[in-house]
């Protein structure tokens, strides 16, 4: 029964820690992409050198704009050439540069939400020089929604398993109490305080919880060590994350303390069941 208790605590904390890891890394991707939100204004015509400062000033004066960078037609073509890599030769076959000049607008901090970027895009679209406006924060918010979903699912699964773990520790401790009832009876008869009577139960539950937490962390660390190198290229490609991170020291400590609390709670609840 004691082994089952440790196993269930391990399971619940592994699930909790696993979802935590996913959410943590998605959170990093979201934060990184929030920093990279851009609104691109494609211009009808390439502005003349004398008109460009005025246009840039007018865009910079808008609410929620942090920075404006002008990308000329030539610069755009050069970027295309770079991103095509080995196939860059196709660009040379073009009769003329088809790419428009554009303004790359970086929203100010706090203006990277989908609503704010939509409002900014609408204002930019109203400029007479604007051909089309692209970009925004919609997909970043989609990513953030996934992150929140992982958090909620992780907490839900963790809570259900934690409840099962508490019940198992309670049952395990109740059995121990039955075995040790002669001892607790004598303790009470001679006047031992309830704290003294309960401490062994509490300690037993806490040790089971700590053991479960340590095993859960070892499993998570092993899964991370094996899985992270394999997943990192995919993360780089899809989310732009160079590497997946593991739980930080405070988060590891929180998981260990959580295990001890789960176990201790189960141990304390056992008293009521034993008395009943």
């Amino acid at each position: 029964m004691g082994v089952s208790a440790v196993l269930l605590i391990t399971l619940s904390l592994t699930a909790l820690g696993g979802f935590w890891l996913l959410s943590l890394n998605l959170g990093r991707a979201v934060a990184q992409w929030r920093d990279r939100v851009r609104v691109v204004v494609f211009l009808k015509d390439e502005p003349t050198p004398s008109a460009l400062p005025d246009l840039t000033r007018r865009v910079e004066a808008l609410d929620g704009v942090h920075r404006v960078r002008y990308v000329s037609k030539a610069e755009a073509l050069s970027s295309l050439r770079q991103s095509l890599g080995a196939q860059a030769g196709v660009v040379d076959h073009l009769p003329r540069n088809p790419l428009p000049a554009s303004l790359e607008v970086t929203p100010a901090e706090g203006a990277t939400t989908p609503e704010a970027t939509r409002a900014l895009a609408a204002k930019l679209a109203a400029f007479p020089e604007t051909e089309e406006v692209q970009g925004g924060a919609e997909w970043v918010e989609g990513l953030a929604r996934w992150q929140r979903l992982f958090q909620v699912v992780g907490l839900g699964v963790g809570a259900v398993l934690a409840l099962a773990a508490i019940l198992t520790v309670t049952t395990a401790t109740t059995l121990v109490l039955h075995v040790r009832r002669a001892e607790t009876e004598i303790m009470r008869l001679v006047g031992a305080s309830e704290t003294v009577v309960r401490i062994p139960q509490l300690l037993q539950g806490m040790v089971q919880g700590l053991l479960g937490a340590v095993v859960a962390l070892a499993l998570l660390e092993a899964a991370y060590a094996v899985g992270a190198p394999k997943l990192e290229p995919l993360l780089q490609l899809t989310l732009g994350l160079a590497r997946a991170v593991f739980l930080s020291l405070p988060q590891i400590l929180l998981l260990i303390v959580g295990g001890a609390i789960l176990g201790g709670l189960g141990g304390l609840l056992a008293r009521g069941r034993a008395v009943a």
Partner: protein
Amino acid sequence: MIEVHRVSKVYSVGPVKVPALREVSFRIAKGEFVVLTGASGAGKTTLLRLLYADEPASEGDIEVAGFNVTNLRRSEIPRLRRSLGIVFQDAKLLSGRTVFENIAFVLRVLGAARHEITPKAFQALKAVGLSARAQAYPAQLSQGEAQRAALARAIVKSPALLLADEPTGNLDEDMAGEILDLIKDIWSRGTTVLLATHQSRLAAQLRRRTLRLDAGVLTKDEG
């Protein structure tokens, strides 16, 4: 030391009410040795259980060793019990521990200083003549020895009051005599004693104040 005023105890068995004690009143002064007699089922054990707050009285007031047991909060029960020594017919020794460990266990759970435990435990064992059996396990003891060990456990914390519930119930006459001598010894050192026994001959032999219970009613208080 003990004041019991119009105490009744009624057990409910489903819809049926079973009276175990009816309006029992008596006083025991500090330093007295009182014998509580009565046939099996007369209410002796119930009365003792009320005295050490193992269960509440249905009616009446109880005061023991300065504690108002009737209104005692759960958290105060350990304080009351620390001033009592309790002995049962069954010695209730912990089977996995030696005699010495059984005695030391009490001191340990009551938070005695480490250096006090061994001398105090041996002193209690010496008082009941069991020093030589300190390392024996309960299963290796005779019934008389087991009861001596239970007495040692009761007196190791120097209680003001010793409650003994049929301590000689399982013993032959010689052994019973030895245990009673030990209890008298404990009493002579200043501990108040209330000893419950159904053995009326033994009670008469003691020639002490005697309370008699018959079907939960106190019918005699003399001596």
